[in-house]
């Protein structure tokens, strides 16, 4: 017995791919290696109001647990740049519930969802992916599939089995580490971000409130950096009496792909979605929205390709083309911004903090208004060539 589509990995990308394909009338299997979908999280859990809307969802207090109205960004010298909006601009999620909710939506659309089910290999025939081998509680199972969606995260193996290199270069992956903490929060509706080579080399420390007195306190630092992410985060917490007094409810770690997407997002009978495809916003490291949008496109292309009876690479590359139009182009700009910022010293960042507003920073993170940043950088001779990389 076979399926039209087997999706490997029930994160936001996989669940949205499975839901979309099932809604299009396909017979879909969604497998997840972990025993509990959504746990353990590897994520700061922030998602914008626009991102939630793009996923076709309305914020539900069961998973959208804290309203965010703005953010404060701290330069290496401590200078604060804040932006606060009158309305809610985003939420901090409870991923354990959110991810499960997305998988439920896939199941309700008709997909078969199986947790604690691990893909162990692909069935290949004449250069086409033809099915999946997987293991459930020690039982080895084989199933045919017209299309396989690899949504197996940063540790992706499925695409590699099909011959696509998804390896992250050390320069292009951030090491993430986070505590979920009970702490005193002054502004539970504001995100806080801290920059500086001593705080988080080639990255930042974040405090994302999950409620009045609970927050994700985490760090992402560029690969290749000396010292481990945990060490830097512990030093930051140690330097802050309010955090030092806090309690730790959960410890999370993960890799965040922050380079360009993998060379190709499809091959014969296979598409790659989400962290596995390196579809992440390289500035803030967020991937829920990117993976979900990609998953929905992949689900739709799967339905069309199967209806036409053509699951060749040439046909499935429509997914990559549509994704590049919708998200890839902007994410590529954001990668370039990231690479430019990485070259700046603390002194440069302090200088920028004097000249930029909170709204500017929000625009930059969304891939907009780079001209303003470039113009300021051009005034420092040393930064001219870096600034040109932004244009």
């Amino acid at each position, binding site marked *: 017995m076979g399926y039209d589509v087997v999706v490997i990995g029930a994160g936001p990308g996989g669940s949205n791919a499975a839901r979309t394909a099932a809604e299009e009338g396909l017979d879909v299997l969604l497998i997840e290696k972990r*025993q509990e979908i959504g746990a353990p999280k590897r994520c700061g859990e922030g998602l914008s109001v626009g991102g939630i809307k793009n996923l076709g969802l309305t914020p539900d207090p069961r998973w959208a647990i804290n309203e965010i109205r703005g953010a404060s960004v701290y330069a290496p010298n401590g200078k604060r740049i804040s932006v606060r909006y009158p309305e809610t601009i985003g939420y901090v999620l409870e991923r354990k519930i959110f991810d499960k909710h997305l998988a439920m939506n896939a199941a309700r659309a008709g997909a078969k969802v199986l947790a604690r089910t691990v893909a162990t290999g692909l069935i290949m025939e004449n250069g086409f992916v033809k099915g999946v081998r997987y293991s459930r509680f020690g039982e080895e199972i084989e199933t045919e599939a017209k299309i396989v969606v690899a949504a197996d995260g940063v540790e992706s193996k499925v695409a590699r089995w099909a011959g696509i290199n998804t*390896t992250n270069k050390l320069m292009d*992956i951030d090491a*993430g580490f986070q505590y979920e903490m009970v702490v005193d929060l002054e502004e539970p509706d504001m995100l806080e971000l801290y920059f500086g080579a001593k705080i988080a080399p080639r990255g930042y420390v974040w405090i994302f409130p999950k409620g009045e007195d609970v927050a994700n306190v985490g760090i992402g630092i560029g690969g290749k950096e000396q010292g481990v*992410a945990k060490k830097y985060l512990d030093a930051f917490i140690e330097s802050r009496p309010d955090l030092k007094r806090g309690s730790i409810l959960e410890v999370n770690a*993960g890799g965040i792909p922050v380079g360009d997407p993998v060379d190709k997002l499809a091959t014969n009978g296979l598409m790659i979605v989400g962290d596995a495809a390196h579809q992440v916003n390289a500035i803030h490291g967020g991937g829920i929205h990117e993976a979900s949008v990609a998953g929905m496109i992949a689900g739709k292309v799967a339905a069309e390709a199967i209806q036409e009876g053509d699951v060749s690479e040439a046909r499935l590359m429509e997914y990559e083309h549509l994704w590049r139009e919708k998200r890839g182009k902007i994410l590529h700009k954001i990668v370039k911004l990231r690479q430019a910022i990485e070259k700046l010293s603390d002194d440069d960042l302090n200088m920028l903090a004097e000249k930029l507003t909170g709204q500017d920073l929000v625009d930059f993170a969304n891939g907009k208004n780079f001209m303003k940043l470039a113009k300021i950088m051009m005034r420092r001779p040393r930064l001219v060539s870096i600034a040109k990389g932004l244009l």
Partner: protein
Amino acid sequence: MACGGCVGVCPFTALELENGNKLDLDGESCTGCGICERFCPVGAIKVV
């Protein structure tokens, strides 16, 4: 922590997360390059 980042950076597909929570090393594929050690957010990997 079994976060999986090291699996994602291994150029030789030598690492695997067994059942999503235990790291498994394929000694034959591993070249000892140490990229996993340099990546690990918690310093849990030592290449000797």
